[in-house]
Every structure is written in C-alpha cells, then in structure tokens.
C-alpha cells in the first residue's frame, strides 16, 4: 500500500519536476492514515450498528418493537441520536477520583480494542485486505485484546467507588483466567494451518464449507463452541458480564462515568465483540471463503487479473463481515435470554470446564491431524485439497513442519543460506 | 384450644394475675403484668398444650384523649397498651395478649415506659418491638438492638402517641 502510494506521489512529483523515493515516509504516513480511518470507521460505525441491532434484537426477543421513530423506518438513526445526547451530557468526575487515570481509562480501552483490528485480515490470497500483515497475527490480536483489562482496572480504581473497584477486580480475575482456554482454542486452527498468520489460516480453508475448520473434525467442532464461550466471557458479555453486573454492582466499573467517556467504554465493548467474532469467523468459519465458493465458481480469482481478483476479495470481505455480524447477533441473543452467572461459577466454568475441554480437544485435534492428515470427518467428506477449486498452491503453503521443506523455505525466503 | 382453656392453662402456671377480657364486639384478650411477661412468653411458646410458635404482630396503642373537652367522656385513665397477636401453626389457635403500661415511667415526661423484650423468644419481636419503640415510645428491656427503625435515628418524639406534635423543622426541611 505504502509503496503504491509512493509511486503515485512520485508520479505527481515528476509532474512538478521532483521525485519521491519508494520508501519515503509520506507513503507510509498516508497509508497508515487510510488504514486508521478505515478501521476507526469500522469500529465506530460497527458500534453504531451494533447498538441499534442490540436494541432491535432485544426488542424482538422481548416482544417489543425496539426503536421505530428516529430516522424514519426501523429507527435506524436511534444510536446517532443517543450519541448526540451523550455528547451533551454533563461530564462528571467524582471528587475523590484519580483525575488523570479516570480521564484516560476509556481511551485506553478503546485503543486496545481498536489496535486488535490492525492485524485482522478481511480478505486474503494474493492481496490480503489487512492493515499490517503480521506472521504472528493471532498471537498479536489475543495479546492486544488482553490489554483492554487495564482500562477496566484503571476505571474501577480511579472512580473511587467501591462498586467500581468490585467490577475492576472481577474483570481482572475473569479476563486473565479466560485467556488460558481461549489461547488453547486458538492454537487448534493454528496447528491445523501450520501458521499463526491469519491470512494463511483463512486461505487454508478455501473451497466449500466442508473445508472450514469448524467441520474439520469432531474436536474442532467442539473447540469452536468453547472458543465462542470464552470469547463471550473475555469481552464481558452476558452471561459473563460480571464487571458491570447492574443488579449487583450498580454498573460495575463504569458506575461513575457519564457522557462521552462512558460511550467510549461502550465502543470498546462492541469493538471487542466484533474483533472476537471476526477472529472466530477467520479461525473456524472459513474467513472470507463462503459456504459456497461463489468467487471461485465465477472465476473471480487472481489468475484472471488483479481487478477480478480484487472483486473476489471484496466479496470475501463481505463474507467475513457477515459471519462476524452473525456471531455478534448470537452474542446478543444469548445476552437477552440467560441470567448472569455468579463470580465463582464464572471461574469454575473457566477452570473446571473450558480449560480441560479445550486442552483435551487440542490433543484430540493434534492426534487427528497426525493420524488422518487431510481427512475431514473421518474421510466422509472430500479432503480439503480435492475440494479446493483452485489449482494454485496457497501463498503460505510452503511452511511445513518438515525439515527439508524448512530448509528450502529458509533459503527461498532469502534468509541466511 | 378455646380461649377460656388457654386462659385457664396460663393461670394454672402463672397465677391469678393474668386477666382475661371477653368483650361483646371484637377479639377477646389476655392481660399480663409486665413483670410476668418473659416467663409467660416462654411457656406460651414451649408449653405443648399452648404451642404458640408464631408471633404475628406487636402493636402499641396509646390511650390518651388530647382534646381536653372530651376527656370527661372517656372511661379510662391515660395509658399505653402493647398488644401481641400470637398464633400456633401446629395447633391452629390464636391469642391476643396485652401488656398495659403507664404513658411515662414514674409519670415523668420523657421517661419511656418499659416492657421486657421477647425478641429472644420469637425473633419476629426484634423488628416489631423496634417499630413500637419508634412510633409509640415503649422501651423494651433486654432487646439486643433498641434503635428506631422507620424514622431517622435523630427523630424526636414518637409519632403514634396521641399528643405528638410534628416538628416544625427537620434538618432544614419544613415540617408543617
């Protein structure tokens, strides 16, 4: 992207009689700004849509209509009106609060939530739609999302309210614990794909929906649900919303917040929900590969030129977003149906159920992968390779846990010979 | 067990100081002297024939005619009655029991009359006695936590007394 921009700048500069180097900082800065704008839009607009959706979904679940007036049909501008209301609200800071930390906490949370999107790809293959293509993307996303806990702890501490402190302590205990089973679940698709690169993991599931890691074997099928449970817990959604449990802790860690700062916590929450769902979509639900490989069937591949490939990628992006939205809707459905667990039950769920199940499934999936390589559901379904419509090898296929290939790959990568 | 039988049983154990009144209208009641009350309460609960395991209600009634023109018409001296309503879930009978105390101890205004607490016999009495203390102004001796319950702790006077005057001001809030 940056190089492309620099080339464009160079073209303009040549017009004015100058030149711009290929690795000029201008291209990088502009590229970064474009990525930032796109991701901010995704998170902010996503939050707008999700809050509207949450109200609609909860309304329908509860035999109500939800918002109907603002913005004409379906009340689709309701969230915007809410946002304006929040902007005009009085901004309260408790007298005993640690003012600096109190002010900064919501932005820390939002930044942590936003930076997870840096490494999440929205389409793959030859020209992945991703802000920063990291070869440790999965790890990075998990790590960054773990930072959100700091916002909650700081908010809880700085509010100088006992309810906030309770919320913060619960959040700290909960998030740190749930990172363990979540990490174990994520390792399973990483192992199957042989890479921590999300682009590569997504591309590996190319083809019909039977190639999704969800359907790879019985173990991965279970792992997906464990992951989704842990994901729900790690973003503090009901039935695990203990940090803000309104019937116990008033509003938990954001009891003392109001106005815009409070809305940043909400944006962070919805941002994390989207990030967790996107990760689930890429790791288990085939990412940008739809249930039916429409793009491949229509010939929208990189074989047939960049523009067509780009169009295929665009379809893939819609695909992954649709899956993530679906998962977010499921989270809402769960929230408006189930009561909240108690703190000890949340910890029990994590340590006594999720972690052992995830560990056992990890071992099971590993054994499956070793004994029945390339066999999906005991060979009942076509193997992924046969199922794949593209003859071309995947960009990351060369990395194998095999010494010879590693050797070759290292040399091919231009590493030290 | 009928009312008369209950009264007889009580008299057998606690002597003839226990009076019973059976008016034409309304409930019949037993009157117990305050000093006898703790042991009567215990036997009411623990005597197998009586078996009053359930205290329904404790109420205080202030008998004072505040209107001087009407004082001549009333047929009682000013006093306070503490009324206990008991029932037995096991045997299915009920009892109304009264303890009559003067409005002020030793007739000195401000000295609350005293009645022995039965919070140790029926836990229901704990909050109910606090309520009577708060609203009618009867002190229950031996109560574990004799504080006001409905009114604020620094409230003055006992609202359900007939000569109670609403304070003109409470922490800057106008009373009347």
């Amino acid at each position: 992207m940056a190089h492309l921009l620099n080339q464009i700048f160079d073209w303009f500069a040549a017009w004015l009689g100058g030149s711009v180097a290929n690795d000029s900082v201008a291209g990088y800065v502009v590229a970064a700004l474009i990525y930032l704008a796109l991701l901010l839009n995704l998170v902010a607009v996503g939050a707008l849509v999700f809050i509207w959706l949450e109200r609609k979904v909860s309304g329908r679940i509860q035999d109500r209509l939800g918002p109907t007036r603002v913005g004409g049909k379906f009340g689709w501008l309701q969230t915007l009106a809410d946002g304006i209301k929040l902007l005009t609200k009085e901004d309260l800071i408790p007298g005993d609060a640690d003012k600096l930390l109190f002010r900064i906490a919501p932005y820390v949370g939002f930044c942590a939530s936003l930076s997870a999107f840096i490494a999440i790809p929205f389409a793959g293959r030859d020209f992945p739609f991703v802000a920063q293509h990291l070869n440790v993307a999965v790890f990075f996303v998990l790590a960054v999302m773990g930072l959100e806990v700091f916002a909650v702890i700081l908010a809880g501490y700085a509010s100088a309210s006992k309810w906030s402190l309770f919320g913060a302590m619960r959040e700290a205990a909960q998030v740190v614990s749930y990172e363990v089973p979540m990490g174990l679940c994520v390792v399973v698709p990483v192992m199957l794909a042989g890479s921590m690169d999300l682009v590569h993991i997504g591309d590996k599931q190319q083809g019909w929906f039977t190639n999704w890691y969800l359907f790879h074997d019985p173990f991965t099928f279970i792992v997906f649900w464990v992951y989704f449970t842990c994901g729900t817990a790690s973003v503090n959604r009901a039935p695990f919303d203990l940090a803000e449990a309104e019937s116990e802790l008033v509003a938990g860690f954001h009891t003392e917040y109001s106005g815009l700062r409070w809305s940043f916590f909400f944006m962070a929450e919805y941002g994390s929900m989207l990030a967790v769902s996107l990760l689930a979509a890429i790791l288990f639900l085939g990412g940008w590969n739809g249930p039916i490989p429409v793009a491949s069937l229509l010939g929208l591949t990189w074989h047939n030129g960049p523009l067509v490939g780009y169009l295929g990628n665009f379809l893939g992006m819609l695909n992954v977003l649709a899956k993530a939205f679906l998962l977010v809707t499921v989270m809402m459905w769960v929230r408006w149906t189930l009561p909240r667990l108690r703190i000890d039950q949340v910890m029990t769920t994590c340590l006594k159920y999720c972690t052992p199940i995830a560990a056992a499934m990890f071992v099971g999936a590993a054994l499956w992968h070793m004994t029945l390589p390339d066999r999906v559901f005991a060979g009942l379904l076509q193997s992924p390779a046969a199922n794949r419509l593209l003859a071309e090898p995947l960009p990351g296929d060369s990395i194998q846990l095999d010494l010879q290939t590693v050797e070759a790959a290292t040399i091919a990568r231009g590493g030290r010979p | 067990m009928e009312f008369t039988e209950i009264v007889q049983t009580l008299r057998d154990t606690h002597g003839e100081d226990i009076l019973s009144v059976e008016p034409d209208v309304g409930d019949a009641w037993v009157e117990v002297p305050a000093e006898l009350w703790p042991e009567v309460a215990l036997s009411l609960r623990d005597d197998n024939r009586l078996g009053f395991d359930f205290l329904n209600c404790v109420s205080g009634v202030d008998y004072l005619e505040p209107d001087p023109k009407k004082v001549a018409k009333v047929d009682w001296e000013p006093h306070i009655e503490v009324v206990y309503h008991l029932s037995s879930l096991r045997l299915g009978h009920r009892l109304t029991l009264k303890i009559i105390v003067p409005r002020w101890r030793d007739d000195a205004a401000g000295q609350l009359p005293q009645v022995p607490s039965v919070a140790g016999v029926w836990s229901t009495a704990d909050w109910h006695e606090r309520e009577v203390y708060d609203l009618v102004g009867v002190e229950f001796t031996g109560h574990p936590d004799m504080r006001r319950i409905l009114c604020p702790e620094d409230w003055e006077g006992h609202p359900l007394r007939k000569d109670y005057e609403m304070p003109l001001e409470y922490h800057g809030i106008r009373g009347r």
Partner: protein
Amino acid sequence: MNWTSCLFLLCSLMAGGFAVAVVLSSNIVRMAFYLVLSLAATAGLFFLAGADFVGAMQLMIYVGGTLVLLVFGVMLTAQSQFVQMRTSSGELLTALILGGALLVVLVSTAINVPAWQPTSNPAVDSATPVITATPIGMALEGYRVDQLTQPDTALRRGMSGYLFPFIIVSVHLLVVLIGAAYLARAKRPVVERMR
C-alpha cells in the same frame, strides 16, 4: 526521512519517558499504569527490530499477564496510606546522581563500540518482513532452521536448539506457580460468632 526511525523515536521516547515517570511518581497505581505504557512501547520497539513473536509475547505475557497480576497485588494492598509512599528527597537525589552516573557509563560504552553503529548493509532490508514464529517454534523443539548450514554437523541438527532450556523453564514455571500459591496463603485468627 526514514519511517522506521520515526517510529523508533516515538516508541523509544514513550518507553524511556514513562520509565522515568515510574521512578518519579509516588502513587503506586499510577506507577503501574506508566509501567504498562513503557512496556507496551518496548513491545513496539521489538516489532520494529523484526521480532514480531517476542513483541506479541511481551504484550501478552508481560503486559497482559504479569502486570495485571501486579496491579492485582497493588489493589489487594492499596490501603490509602500505602498508595502514596513518598521517598525522602535526599534518598531520591542520591539515587538520581548514582543512576545518572550509571547511565553515562552505559551510554558512552554503547556509543564507543564501532560494531554497534548503524550499518549500511543489514542482513535483511527493513522493508522485508521476517518470519520469526516458525523458526522460534522449531528452535524450542530443538531444530535451528537458521543454523542449518552450520559447518559443524554435530551442531546442525537439533543440537543447537533450545529444547532443554524450554523444558527446564516449563518445569520451573510449574514449580513457581505452586510455590507462589503456597507462599501467598496466610494464617490468621478469625472470631466466629456462634448462635
């Protein structure tokens, strides 16, 4: 302008600046917060140096795990009189002078070694991404994919890996966790009310 240098400057200023803030702050919770920012900026430096995996690990284990633990400890013990514990200015001055001397020694040493100066022909161009996750994983398994052309064949296959330290560290971690759980337990008398 060189973009890696810009980012380096940003990250290093953050890392250094917040480290200084940790020293100067007297509020323990704020210290923890500054430490988080400093370590996160250090993770950024790791990413810039081409150590993606270690950078992500720094974020996950250090910032997300260790520091949360630390903040947890801060909150468990954060009674108001311990939150603000001031150091006497004399002590602080002495420490600052000694620390300044240490800094001067370290920096002058670093500057005076020619091999550590910026190089014009790095092993890999900074625009080329390096893949570190797989080699690190292989190294922990005992295979050094970057040492495959080792002239000494005994060192080539597996022998130069980190399998043994890896196992040691794993066992060590287990022991430490059990030990920490044991250490943190305490006995104290409680008065239980009997009814």
